[in-house]
């Protein structure tokens, strides 16, 4: 479980950073999306990985915290997902505007001189 999680975060981050450094706006957006997935997984991992443990306490009975998983990172991830989704959408609008104004999808608005 830990190894799969670590590999997933690593691969997503690696591809995300690589795409982020590419010159096309579309690659930039995909790179940022991949990075945000990696970060979301990372936040989840910071709450310690548990399998089969509920995050919500049962009502009434005496509570043993060890039997539950940490609910806070899950709440944080939800917020982070919403925010990164919104900024990606905004990014797409700017990307289209830039494409319309400069007639190129290069991030600097002009092609490199060969």
């Amino acid at each position, binding site marked *: 479980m830990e190894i799969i999680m670590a590999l997933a975060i690593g691969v997503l981050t690696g591809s995300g950073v690589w795409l982020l450094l590419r010159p096309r*706006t579309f690659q930039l957006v995909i790179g940022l999306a991949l990075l945000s997935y990696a970060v979301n997984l990372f936040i989840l991992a910071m709450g310690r990985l548990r399998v089969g443990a509920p995050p919500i306490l049962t009502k009434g009975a005496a509570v043993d915290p060890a039997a539950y998983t940490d609910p806070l990172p899950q709440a944080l991830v939800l917020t982070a997902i919403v925010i990164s989704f919104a900024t*990606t959408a905004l990014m797409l609008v700017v990307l289209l*505007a830039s494409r319309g104004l400069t007639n190129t999808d290069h991030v600097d608005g002009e092609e490199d001189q060969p």
Partner: protein
Amino acid sequence: MTGGWMQHLVVLPIVLPLVASAVMLLLHDRRLRLRSSLGLATTALLVLIASVLFYQTLAGGPLQPWVGTYRLGDWAAPFGIVLVVDRLSALMLLLTSVLGFTSLLYALARWDRSGPRFHALFLLLLMGLNGAFLTGDLFNLFVFFEVFLAASYGLVLHGSGQPRVSAGLHYIAINVATSLLFLIGVSLLYGVTGTLNMADLAMRIPNVPPEDVMLLEAGAAILGIAFLVKAGMWPLGLWLPRTYAAAAPPIAAMFAMLSKVGVYIILRLSMLLFGDQAGLAASFANDWLLIGGMATIAFGAVGILSASTLTGLVGHYVLVSSGTLLAAIGTGSHRVLAGALFYLVSSTLAIAAFYLIVELVERGSVEEGEGSTSEPVFEDEYLGALAEEEDNEIGVVIPATLAIIGGGFAFCALLLSGLPPLSGFIAKFAMIDGILAERATMETSSWWFIGLILASGLAALIACVRAGIDLIWTPDETQTPALGVLEAVPIAILLSACLALMIWAGPAMTFMEDTVRDLSDRAVYSDSVLAPIGKSVGEVAP
């Protein structure tokens, strides 16, 4: 402030602009008068609220620590969401609201019509800024950061045009990537300490076991990178001058505050979490801040000298200002910090005023056109009213335009370069005096810091004189620009705030010293935030 409606004053700087901006969205873009008056009324109310909060922090008298808390939903502190007002946040709130009011007033003259939904975005920006200054919780800090960043993305693009869109694209990409770093940092801190409440973090960090200290410092450093990008520390701030130059002037004036948010958070966290009492991780980043800050000053000073436009000049001055503040935090000396806070207020006001004046100066000498307004990108975009009513909408025109603009320019130049007798000089004098006070234990880096403070002032002076001669005193054929009252008043407010800071420099310095004293004692902050629920909300710390 016990009981009554006064206790809810703390949450108003967040709720009020949020509600007002939601109302703005319902109003059509053509209902100019209604939108302008609503926006102006909201920002004026914000100034009032911030002044009351600021006045309350003075109530305890000097030397008396003051921390007010507001629990949302009345949950006890480490579990619920808490807002905290202490002297530093009250000061920043006041500064933000004054800048917000003046920038909005200036924008009403013409800029608010050069693109859609200006007022809603502007108020959201204020809400995010106020929230970031008030929150006592790292994750809410992230949320408020995103709120004002999202608003600033929209505002950078305000007025459209190719330079703005491509500068905006870089700005958004950099800030989205930084927000991810912010999240990584926050979650690492949570992973090590198990809390996100700043007061609780301050209590737990000294007890972090030695094997986890490395992870804690890594988390804090990654978090710090996110704020340093906002503050524009070299080499993370290369995006800043270009973006600020591309933004419309009143927005750029407001953005002067944006880079100070980064500095504010760095100051808050380094004093609260990694101050002298933080055990193994104490002051781990100070050397980095000192050296990074000095590199930023040097870079900014070179940039000021080499800038070919006035907006480029101010943009690099923003870097110098951030660099000075970061290096001052890095020294860790309380007297230097008090001077730095004074400098923060004075330089932010001066930068904002300068951005506004620059536009007036350049309007007279540079051809209108590129950058100010342009073709719409999308079909449904609101076409600004700028083109058709360029001449008749300027409002009441006041005489002696050139003299006023020239005077304002000279005033700003004095402020930026830190020449006596204005507040810029007092601020730099206080910082240098603070450094020299610890002459016995001083290292070589402090001498460098003093040298850089003076050199950056000289660079600003040279660049301003050169630009001033070129743009204002050289007679040319271009007609003098018409100056509307709506544009003169905001500049006058900002500059007279600087004057007031100069006249009451004594009380202001006392306040800054009290602020730093509060900041350096984490128990003051933590005890009042973590106070048990039985005590009334908004309790004043003993």
